[in-house]
């Protein structure tokens, strides 16, 4: 943390943004370490159930319809077909099936999702701010957020202004997050860095701090619309930034890798990483989320296998 860059906060206060270089090879090596963890038996089952409870079940398509969103919300509430749930619950190893953490949709779909989730404690997240590129005027991005909140979203997934970030205008990136945060009101803010467009871990680290200082409740890797999306190393760099931020401020920021996490095996690796980098305090849906859709069914299959000892076949699980 040698050379700090500054942004100007409320009332003209200078806020230093920690800059901590990241060695790519070392970070990737460390991330690969977590792929070697071998999670078996009860700890695996624990992990699988926990993963479900951390999923932001997501659909972000131009083709999303009220019907499609309704189905997704049903899956969010009852991830597993009731017949199979009953079969599993006979088994001593089985635990009650949690619902997912949230459903994540476009603003236009929020009203439909809000209706479908009524009476549950599943959160409703909306991407906003001209998702995914964010290349629309700020007032429109702010209005986007306000609309989503007014429709019933209690979590907002915004994208940072990469154009400003990559041109070195960190003040704009910062100010915009501050304004979006304001527009969120009570809703919680996840700030998407779109790491696949920042490309270096140094920048990911820096952008993480910028977002946290500007008011992010969560930092999030990706929109899922850019490749690469979430990776273990990029998540590691962000977890380290969260840790450093916690060390210096005492504030705990949440983390959400999104995009590209499709298998239970991958998700368990992320969980191990959170466990060993940030510790158990972050192993809760309040502090860690997976932005994913197909992940859910893979986790369910693994739970089925783990409990019954039998291999699943796809058709016993509902598509959504």
């Amino acid at each position, binding site marked *: 943390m040698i050379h700090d860059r500054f942004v100007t906060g409320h009332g003209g206060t200078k806020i230093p943004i920690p800059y901590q270089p990241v*060695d*790519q*090879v*070392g970070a*990737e090596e460390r991330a690969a370490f977590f792929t070697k963890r071998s999670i078996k038996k009860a700890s695996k089952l624990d992990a699988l159930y926990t993963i479900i409870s951390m999923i932001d079940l997501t659909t972000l398509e131009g083709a999303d319809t009220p019907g499609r969103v309704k189905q997704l919300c049903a899956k969010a509430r009852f991830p597993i077909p009731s017949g199979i749930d009953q079969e599993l619950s006979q088994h001593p190893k089985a635990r009650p099936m949690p619902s997912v953490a949230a459903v994540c949709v476009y603003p236009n779909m929020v009203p439909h999702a809000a209706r479908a989730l009524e009476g549950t404690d599943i959160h409703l997240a909306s991407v906003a701010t001209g998702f995914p590129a964010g290349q629309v005027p700020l007032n429109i991005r702010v209005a986007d957020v306000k609309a989503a909140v007014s429709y019933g979203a209690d979590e907002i997934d915004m994208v940072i202004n990469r154009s400003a970030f990559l041109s070195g205008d960190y003040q704009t990136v910062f100010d915009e997050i501050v304004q979006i945060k304001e527009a969120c009101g009570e809703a919680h803010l996840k700030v998407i860095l779109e790491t696949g467009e920042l*490309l*270096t871990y140094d920048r990911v680290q820096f952008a993480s701090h910028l977002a946290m200082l500007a008011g992010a409740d969560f930092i999030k890797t990706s929109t899922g619309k850019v490749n690469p999306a979430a990776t273990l190393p990029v998540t590691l760099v962000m977890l380290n930034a969260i840790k450093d931020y916690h060390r210096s401020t005492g504030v705990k920021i949440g983390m959400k890798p999104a995009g590209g996490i499709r298998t239970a095996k991958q998700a368990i690796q992320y969980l191990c990483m959170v466990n060993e980098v940030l510790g158990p305090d972050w192993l809760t849906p309040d502090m860690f989320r997976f932005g994913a859709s197909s992940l859910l069914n893979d986790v369910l299959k693994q739970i089925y296998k783990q409990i019954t000892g039998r291999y699943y076949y796809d058709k016993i699980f509902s598509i959504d």
Partner: protein
Amino acid sequence: MSGINQASSHIAKTTKLFIKGEFPRTESGRSFPVKVHGGEQVFAHICQASRKDLRNAVEAAKAAQPGWAGRTAYNRAQILYRMAEMAEGKRHELVEGLKTLMGLSEDKADQEVQQGIDSLVYYAGFADKYSQVMASVNPVAGPFHNFTTPDAVGVVGLLYDRDFSLAHFFSTIAAVVCAGNSVVVVFDQPGAALLSEMGEIFKTSDLPAGVINLLSGHLDELYSFLGEHMEVHSILYTGNDSQRLGELKEMAIENMKRVVPWTFDNCDLEPIVSFTESKTVWHPVGI
């Protein structure tokens, strides 16, 4: 004009030691006479270096070595070449000395000196090349740049235990310093009688003080001090005495000196290799 005739008109001088670029007398006050070849006439009184002188020389060599190794290879090459030029300037004295002290013919003596000068030039030309020949970039299986380069061993103790040959003497010293080492040479008569001439060559070649140190003395007395000295990193032994070589190897064990028996007939890369360590550096390749 024969060497002997010249010697007869010669005032027998006391040849001093060459330590840290200076010509001190031995602190012990001891000397021994070196006679002209085949005669009883004293050519010179030679300082008989003591253990204390040896320590001073090693001290000087230790202090000088990092700076010498830190010079650019080009600069070391230039200085070695300068040594050859200075030796050329002393050709007459050296030839006369060899004739007088060793009974060499004019031709033979001249040939000796020429060979000595040639070896200085040879190693001058190698100083900025041996690392290119010895180094490697190693294709490790991972995102790392990995390379190996030669590094000087440090302080070399040269025990000159054989019949004196100027060509050979220059060649050993040049090889050792070429690789960035400093050297403490222990030798005795008749070569020791030429210590002043050789010291002057080294002193006037822009060679940093302490890189080459010459001690005349009795090998039987000094070899164990050299072999046991903890600041000496390598021993170069030129003799054929396998018993003594074995002893030196045993003495070397305490600080794991590299003991190198000099088996090199010609100027070559091998002597340089013998007085280098390989250093391998890894560095990740990433953004």
